[in-house]
């Protein structure tokens, strides 16, 4: 176990950090993060061993500007060798995103298909823009992703924000 200052909370609060960061830069109107008291819950309709699994990412496609602003779908076979992530606020001095499997585990899921743990992998993965507008996310992007999942007969979804 590492040395850790027990006067701070264990995990990083990105809500606190981003508020302090932007306040220090003169932005006095902090972002209001989505907050809900409840959450929906859907049970598995069938065993995972017969279910088709999809991946949903906040990364974009290389050399595809539309994928920065719109929901997209791209093939999982062959697995993507690189995705564009520079526009996203991940920790660029601490890590990197050169290994796609570290944020879009297509090959890991293929292995699980081969092992019989899951029934299959969706022929496409899906990308969602990260938007300050929660309304746009809920009213436009989320229904678009749902439609893509339905078109590909997806049974369960793994959402992997960077």
């Amino acid at each position, binding site marked *: 176990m590492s040395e850790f200052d027990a006067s701070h909370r264990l995990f990083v609060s990105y809500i606190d950090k981003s508020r302090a960061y932007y306040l220090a830069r003169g932005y006095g109107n902090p972002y209001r993060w989505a907050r809900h008291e409840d959450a929906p819950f859907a049970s598995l309709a069938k065993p995972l061993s017969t279910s088709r699994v999809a991946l949903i990412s906040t990364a974009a496609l290389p050399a595809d500007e539309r994928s920065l602003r719109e929901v997209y779908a791209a093939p999982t076979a062959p697995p993507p060798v690189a995705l564009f992530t520079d526009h996203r606020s991940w920790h660029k001095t601490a890590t990197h995103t050169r290994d796609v*499997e570290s944020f879009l585990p297509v090959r890991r899921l293929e292995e699980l298909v081969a092992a019989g743990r899951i029934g299959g992998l969706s022929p496409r993965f899906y990308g969602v823009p990260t938007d300050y507008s929660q309304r746009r*996310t809920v009213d436009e992007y989320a229904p678009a992703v749902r439609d893509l999942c339905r078109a590909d007969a997806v049974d369960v979804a793994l959402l992997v924000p960077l």
Partner: protein
Amino acid sequence: MSLVARYLESNGLPTVVMGSARDIVEQCGVPRFVFTDFPLGNPCGKPYDVPMQRAIVGIALDLLETARHPRTTVQTPFQWDTVGDWRTTYMQISARAGENEEST
């Protein structure tokens, strides 16, 4: 992304969010969440660490089968390093008032 998970789940599609921004995901409220206490960028395991990636994806699938209630969070057993500097270097504000370092 958490809002998309909520929407899909409301439409009958079971979901798991795999991520490292615990407070943002949990405040939004999602059905199932696999939390890995890493710097943002590698929610499915360290780059090129295949066994770790396999384990984290496995935990996400297990959670789909075992969760009985929404807002179920599972934390994976991995730590980024033994130093922990990454916790303070993200969006770091310099000590001198008015000067900030871009570190994201």
